[in-house]
């Protein structure tokens, strides 16, 4: 059986020249690979990913902002529409009132006119009737008087004079 150290254990810790050469070659190759290719590649991927995630966040925030704005706009429009509607309603109401009032006043005016016309016509008819009545009463009275006093009053001057006197008398009687 061979013992563990066997006397040349020290040679383990004395690097050989070719060992050093190959170690350095490998070290340099590994270092260059990692510094120049591997880490920049992955760093760019990490950065890109972070950027993308951040970009998505900002995009989402932007979309939310836009949505908020649209909502605000919509609400504003809604409010405006509501106000418009109420205004229109008020207008309509007042217009209706106006119309009703106009109609009222027109009707009143018409009624007054009609009344006035009627009164006027009544008045004129009354007058006509009065005149006619006056004439009729005159003739009637004349004929009556003629019949009563006979032929004496054939003279028209006399006749009208008498008639006037009689009417005056009647008026006076009416007044008393």
């Amino acid at each position, binding site marked *: *059986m061979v*013992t*563990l*150290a066997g006397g040349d*254990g*020290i040679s*383990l*810790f004395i690097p050989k020249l070719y060992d050093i050469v190959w170690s350095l070659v490998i070290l340099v190759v590994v270092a260059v690979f990692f510094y120049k290719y591997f880490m920049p590649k992955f760093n760019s991927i990490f950065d890109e990913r972070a950027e993308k995630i951040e970009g998505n966040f900002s995009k989402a925030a932007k979309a939310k902002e836009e949505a908020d704005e649209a909502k605000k706009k919509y609400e504003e429009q809604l409010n405006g529409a509501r106000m418009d509607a109420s205004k229109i309603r008020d207008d309509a109401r007042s217009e209706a009132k106006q119309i009703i009032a106009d109609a009222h006043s027109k009707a009143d005016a018409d009624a007054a006119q009609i009344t006035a016309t009627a009164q006027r016509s009544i008045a004129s008819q009354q007058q006509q009737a009065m005149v006619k009545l006056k004439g009729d009463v005159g003739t009637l009275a004349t004929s009556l008087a003629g019949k009563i006093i006979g032929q004496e009053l054939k003279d028209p001057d006399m006749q009208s004079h008498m008639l006037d006197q009689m009417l005056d008398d009647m008026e006076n009687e009416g007044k008393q």
Partner: protein
Amino acid sequence: MGIITLAQIAGNLNLIGYGLAALGPSLGLGLIVSKSVESTARQPEMAGKIQTLMLIGAAMVELLGLLGFVALLIM
């Protein structure tokens, strides 16, 4: 193992020396680990930092044990 092999192992005093040299670092490692477990239990939020420090300390102590091993090899 035969009697000859036993005699050969007994002949290598370096191994006994290495066994003795491993005693100190083993105690040290035990202390380091027990203390860091204690600290982690006290402040769980510092666990990462404590673990890092523990590993650095353990690496220092481990070196002492390995120096014994190296001495075993080269003597």
